[in-house]
């Protein structure tokens, strides 16, 4: 069935599909990243600086 489905598709559109997929994914990630608070960002970035467990985690 998948073979029939793929054969019926216009594969020349793959590049455009891929680009659209990428743009949506990239925009979502960028948006989500910008929503990260400065406090959380600073806390996450400092994780490697100590080998010991520091609260709050």
């Amino acid at each position, binding site marked *: 069935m998948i073979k029939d489905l*793929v054969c019926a598709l216009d594969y*020349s559109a793959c590049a455009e599909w891929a680009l659209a*997929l990428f743009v949506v994914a990239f925009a979502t990630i960028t948006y989500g990243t910008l*929503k990260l608070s400065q406090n959380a960002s600073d806390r*996450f970035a400092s994780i*490697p600086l100590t080998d010991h*467990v520091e609260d*709050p985690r």
Partner: protein
Amino acid sequence: MATVTSTDAPQGGVVEGHGATNAGRMEEFSYDDSIVRMFATATIVWAIVATLAGLLVAVLLILPGLAGGSQYFSFARLRPLHTNAAIFAFAGNAIFAAVYYSTQRLCKARMWSDALSRMHFWGWQLIIVLAAITLPLGITQSKEYAELQWPIDILIAVVWLFIFGGNFLMTLIHRRERHMYVALWFYIATIVTVALLHVFNNLVVPIGWFASIPVYAGVQDAFMQWWYGHNAVAFFLTTPFLGLMYYFLPKAAERPVFSYRLSIIHFWSLVFIYIWAGPHHLHYTSLPEWASTLGMLFSLMLWMPSWGGMINGLLTLRGAWHKVAADPVLKFFVVGVTFYGMSTFEGPMLSVKAINAFTHYTDWTIAHVHSGALGWNGFMAFGMLYWMLPRIFQTKIWSDKLVSLHFWIGTLGILLYIIPIYAAGLMQGWMWRAMDDTGHLMYPDFVETTQSIVPLWWLRVVGGLLYVSGTLMLGVNALMTWMNRPSEYEVPVISAPRLSKEYNVTEPKAKSHLEGAPVLDLSKKLDIFGRMGWHRSWERLPVKFTVLTTLAVIVATLFEAIPTFLIRTNVPTIATVKPYTPLELAGRHIFVSEGCYNCHSQMIRPMVSETKRYGEYSKPGESIYDRPFQWGSRRIGPDLAREGGKQSSFWHWTHFENPENVSPGSVMPSYEHLLTEDLKYDAIAPHVQAAAYLGAEYSEADLNDTANVAMAQAERIAAEIVEQGGPAKTYEKQAVALIAYLQRIGIDLFAEETPAEAVPAETAPEGEAAPTDEPAEVAMNHANGSQID
């Protein structure tokens, strides 16, 4: 924090119970630095071996006679040994040292299983040793960076995915730090993607323990190989080293990464984009145009996130540049990250079709690869080791001056390596395509180009020698540091409770800002969704995060792979292209075993300069029986796609005996052993059966009386050799099988037309005319676009 002492024995029982989940109960644990010491030592040993092997093959390229005619030390057999040693032994062990050191500290937990850690170490070293034995013996799949045969491939899959991956994932699950730091994301992407790439590129039909043929053929095999090949660079030599950068650079600089937000964007961009880029290795080949364009497009997109990562790394040193002047560890990191930026600019640039048309098959690619491998991977690994050695051996580094000397001599070595090889690539590109006023090639003799770049190859040897001497300095420094270690290592013991199952400390259950406002429920839900709390929760859930990363990679792969495999017009059939005869299959196996693809391509691109030099450009339908494909990736020697019938059989015999006899100035070594060693006719049948199993059409005689069918063809070629003035009784020798193969390459396209064969109905999409109903020339027109240049 308490401290206990230890020898280098595993500390399997260190006061930690994995079963407990009671968040309030204090637990004591320690980090397993013993496994880090093991991988760090292996990294140094294999760095020396890999760079020495590189130096050896660089010399053998110029002085092929240095091998003394031994087939085990020819350039073509040792080059894969060098690349495998550099990638999987040196870089691989560096990755593992980094992962084992940083993961434990980022998770605030010991590795889940000491036993699995050690099985991983010894399993990986066994794989490397098996590679070192099998590759010089000519046991190879001939796929670049995936040369190892199927039994070793199975071992790799088990060690990588189940032992290493399993131990890593379980450590994440049992961690004590709520947030998974971004370095861990890069490690997760590495583990799942490399496993996928490895398994799907190595699907083969075994022919005994030491040979196999891939389930893919021709165009599809090439597509899979470079999907693997490019992403081996992406997910073995890039993402784990970025994880390393995001952990060790802040540690060495003693300041957090410049922008954590940028590191998140960097990660997801690479995961989404990298997997598409493989087809840029196949521009202007028989790969469908759309796939090639897609590869180029995504390669160009890679530039921005890569440079985002580079900038993030360099700006981590903001306010600490004074430390760089004094600290050689930071110097290694700065140069390493700079080479990352350079390589990730050059890579997208080389993927642009117009530029790739010039650089492909030339030494430019070799220079590009080495600026990444020596500069980025090498220097990041060295920086990590010099930072780590005093900590894991618990003493100060033996000689700071030697570290500095290593840095400067290594940097000089890289420059002295890549600059001449860039120049060699430019010279090859220009000389191969240079035309005179009458429209003829200015340098029709291939050897002329080779000879003109030999001085540049010598400069590369000098650069390589400097780089090798740097790795030897690292070895001496590490050995002396280890000798000054304390009699017993201190093992700090840390007390901390487990993580609670519920996470509601800083981010209580999401409530919409629109609560109470006169809006639809949908708006409230969208408001909560838009706050991206779901992404924050993914970042805390290792299994879900791993599944999502895997999905991102698989979806992108399927976008390219499904059309390539299932749409029939991608590989139009050519009526006159037939399967190889049994003797030709045996010869092809010798071609593969000797690693001829390391120097000779079999892919003529549709460019005037190529068609004038080599003949009609290659069509997709010509390689449908090529398992594995042999398109190659560089031209140290000329392309062989139309070699059939170009030279006499005796010419080939003489060429194998000593290439300089018929091609003065050639850098090809002697293959005299093919003239003296007997061909094992009884061993041909399994090759024919495997090809038939995968769809090649063979007669009853080919399948059941293989040895006699092959012998009959060998006798005909032996008779030709005698007629052309050569020796008698050559039909017993391996060279005759190889000659049979070489005389067959590329001639089917011009073969006399035979009555058209019906295309199996189940493979032809409805409404599409079967190309086999057309004359060969007409069918060919479907195969590719028009000639360029």
